[in-house]
């Protein structure tokens, strides 16, 4: 029989300085955190960096984790913010006044347009505004409920629903 220890027990041990407990938490949550970053950033190397930074930030702030939300929601929250920061920084690389919004079909995504349907879909997701992309990724790829997405983003479930709705329409228009 395998004894499964709850996240919260591991969190308490890690809060007391037990790095092995934290390691087990990283092992449990690295897939969703990395996958979120990958869908948000559409770049494996950026996603790896964002996932690393997420867990390091989580370790540093672990003392403040109060179990009011699940660890998974808390990690999604940190990861989402990391990704938004990366997306913000990328705007400089593409030139401050010629960002994606001005000409969404230029830039690194253009190459992906020639790939298969899933590559085109990934590129279309990458063209959504970050505000629309986050709820879409959390809902469609991470399977979170509106309430959980609201916790991650500090939004009411109703506001989440609205953003998600616009994101879907935008995505379908783009992919059509």
């Amino acid at each position: 029989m395998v004894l499964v220890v709850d996240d919260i027990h591991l969190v308490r041990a890690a809060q007391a300085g037990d790095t092995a407990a934290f390691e087990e938490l990283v092992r449990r949550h690295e897939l969703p955190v990395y996958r979120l970053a990958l869908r948000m950033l559409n770049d494996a190397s950026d996603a790896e960096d964002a996932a690393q930074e997420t867990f390091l930030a989580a370790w540093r702030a672990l003392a403040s984790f109060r179990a009011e939300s699940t660890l998974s929601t808390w990690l999604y929250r940190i990861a989402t913010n990391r990704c938004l920061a990366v997306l913000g920084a990328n705007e400089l690389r593409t030139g401050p006044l010629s960002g994606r919004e001005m000409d969404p079909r230029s830039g690194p995504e253009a190459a992906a347009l020639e790939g298969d349907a899933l590559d085109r879909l990934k590129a279309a997701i990458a063209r959504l505004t970050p505000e629309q992309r986050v709820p879409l990724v959390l809902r469609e790829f991470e399977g979170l409920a509106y309430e959980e997405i609201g916790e991650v983003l500090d939004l009411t479930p109703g506001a989440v629903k609205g953003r998600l709705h616009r994101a879907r329409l935008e995505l379908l228009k783009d992919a059509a």
Partner: protein
Amino acid sequence: MTLAHDGEPLPCGVDVGLLVDQVAEGLPPVDPEHQATCEFCQAALADLEPLWGQVRELAREDVVVPGRLLATVMQAVRAEQIPGRAAGLSLRDVLPQLVSHALLVGERGTLRISDSVIAQILVREALATPGVSALDSGGVRSMLRATPGVEVTVDGSRVAVRLRLVVDLGLPIPEVLRAVRLRAAKAVRVMTGLETSAIDITVTDVRDSDH
């Protein structure tokens, strides 16, 4: 393609958005009787299903976490001088600032410039000013930002800036700071069209530039 009519209902009066959510969430139709017999609804659904099928396919795609992720994280965790417990940081401290954008409303649309863009311009200008040795990345709060030593607050088209600098020993500090202010304000204006409402500078250390 049905969706090309942005925001407009189908000829039968049904909102395309409702059909999108029906397909995406797997919900039952709002008006099953109408939908079953309406050619417009059926055509829209026939377009939507395969498109959304791709989203579902992507959701099923296997994602493989790079094998070194765990080891890299744990190496950093174990190397931390201050264990998480003693550091006692709040989530707010370790989250990077939420990205916010400055807005420039023009005749042909709105330009949005993220605060991190402005921060990076400021870093470049500060470091290019004679007498500035470095930006102070001190403090865990600041360290986690993409641009340590710079804090940018945007409000519409106005930008307030806080810089933490390490300056070289030898030059008069007020003159160095005046030069930083002038350069920073000019660069932000020229590169982004935004005005700086305040540039607060804290000198946190000096360095002997002969070393």
